[in-house]
């Protein structure tokens, strides 16, 4: 995929742009597989798989480093303009988003290993459901990138609201359980971090959707995302404050 189907007069430049797109697509595929494995590890309480996900994150870090170097080289040697420039700068941003998605998948896997040491708690079902929703968005956004499909990117962008709502709902479920059954606090605390990580993965998918819009059309997404109800927003802020306090050094 290149910004336009027709080729540059300098064929090697077209080939380099194609290489860049391919590298982003491959990196996206790896991140998506990491996320899928992390979900399987939660679902099947498979700590060995979770370890493999954590170990696999370095591959994404290396890919991001390679893409950064490739982008710098293209900027220096080709001095791209217009759609080519947007394509290259977009790739740089997207690779950084993918790297963060990989980090969150690894974090989820790390906590899965701890959660697996405790008895299974009921809200895990909600966590898995949320993870699948997020994974669907990640998958869709990479499809949108490969196809340069702005409509598909918009769908992902709009779809993040459902992720946020699910985060709020699972958060409530976990809080209720912790109040009712204090024995579950250790497991639920880790699950709280996990849903926060998944919510951030959704945000990165949204960022990628915005970048796709920019690199295809040259303009940012102009519409405003549907607003949450103020009650849901307040609740989310509470949830954020709560998880932040948990994350601060003890």
């Amino acid at each position, binding site marked *: 995929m290149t910004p336009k189907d027709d080729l*540059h007069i300098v064929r090697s*430049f077209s080939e380099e742009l194609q290489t860049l797109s391919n590298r982003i697509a491959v990196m996206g595929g790896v991140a998506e597989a990491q996320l899928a494995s992390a979900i399987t590890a939660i679902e099947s309480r498979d700590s060995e798989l979770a370890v493999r996900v954590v170990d696999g994150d370095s591959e994404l870090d290396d890919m991001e480093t390679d893409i950064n170097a490739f982008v710098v080289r293209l900027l220096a040697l080709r001095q*791209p*303009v*217009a759609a*080519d420039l947007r394509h290259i700068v977009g790739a740089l941003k997207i690779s950084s988003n993918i790297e963060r998605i990989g980090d969150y998948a690894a974090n989820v896997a790390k906590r899965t290993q701890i959660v697996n040491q405790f008895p299974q708690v009921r809200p895990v079902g909600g966590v898995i459901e949320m993870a699948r929703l997020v994974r669907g968005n990640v998958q869709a956004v990479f499809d949108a990138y490969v196809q340069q499909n702005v409509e598909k990117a918009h769908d992902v962008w709009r779809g993040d609201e459902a992720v946020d709502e699910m985060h709020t709902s699972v958060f409530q479920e976990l809080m209720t359980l912790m109040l009712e059954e204090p024995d579950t606090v250790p497991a639920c605390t880790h699950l709280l971090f996990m849903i926060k990580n998944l919510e951030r993965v959704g945000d990165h998918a949204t960022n990628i959707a915005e970048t796709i819009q920019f690199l295809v059309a040259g*303009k940012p997404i102009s519409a405003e995302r549907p607003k949450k109800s103020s009650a849901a927003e307040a609740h989310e802020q509470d949830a954020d404050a709560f998880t932040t306090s948990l994350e601060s050094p003890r």
Partner: protein
Amino acid sequence: MNQEVSPVKDTAGAPLVSSDPVKLAARDVTVSYAEKKALIDVNIDIVERQVTSFIGPSGCGKSTFLRCFNRMNDTIDICRVEGRITLDNENIYDENVDPVQIRARIGMVFQKPNPFPKSIFENIAYGPRIHGLVTDKDDLDEIVHSSLEKAGLLKEVKDRLDAPGTSLSGGQQQRLCIARAIAVSPEVILMDEPCSALDPIATAKIEELIDDLRENYTIIIVTHSMQQAARVSQRTAFFHLGYLVECGDTETVFTNPEHELTQGYITGRFG
């Protein structure tokens, strides 16, 4: 002098400037060499004290159009210019307009530096003298020095003003030609690929000079270097096969051009 300006037309997608002060304007300009049309229905506004670059593949009409602004095309017998071109709202093609006076107000710098086979001093002094801009030697000295200063050349040549202009390096010769253009106090400077015969350092000096000059002059530059257009101009006009395809802020043209043709040309996809 006809003060009317034809109704603004959105010809070939060229947005005409509305709020900025307009120095030069072209309305429905068509230029033909005998039967062959080199430019078709071009409409453009050139903003005062800005640099406007004309880009486009060879034969697109950009140099032909540049030469319309100081009636250089008058010197070509088979060339016919139709439409209106105004300088400060006055039609420069009106019968009672003297092309020599127009060329004093609209100076030109060419692709290859072309100093007269005379001293550096005489290269600059020639214009002011024939246009009767000076009364005595002191005046002339003043104009020669200030023109060389404005062209960023004074420091390099002040001790050898009697040396032949042709003894300077290519870049210095080009700055000498710019100084020569400035010496008759023009309002507009037209530049036809002024750096294409120069090395990158001399090119950078000319580009720096262009940036300084736009404080006082309206500049139009024809260039084959897209990077140069991006570096020096505030507005860019793209020509193709005699049509003005797109004209807009340089930043927009090089990040998000409106037309597929512009996109294809600046990214090097032109087949």
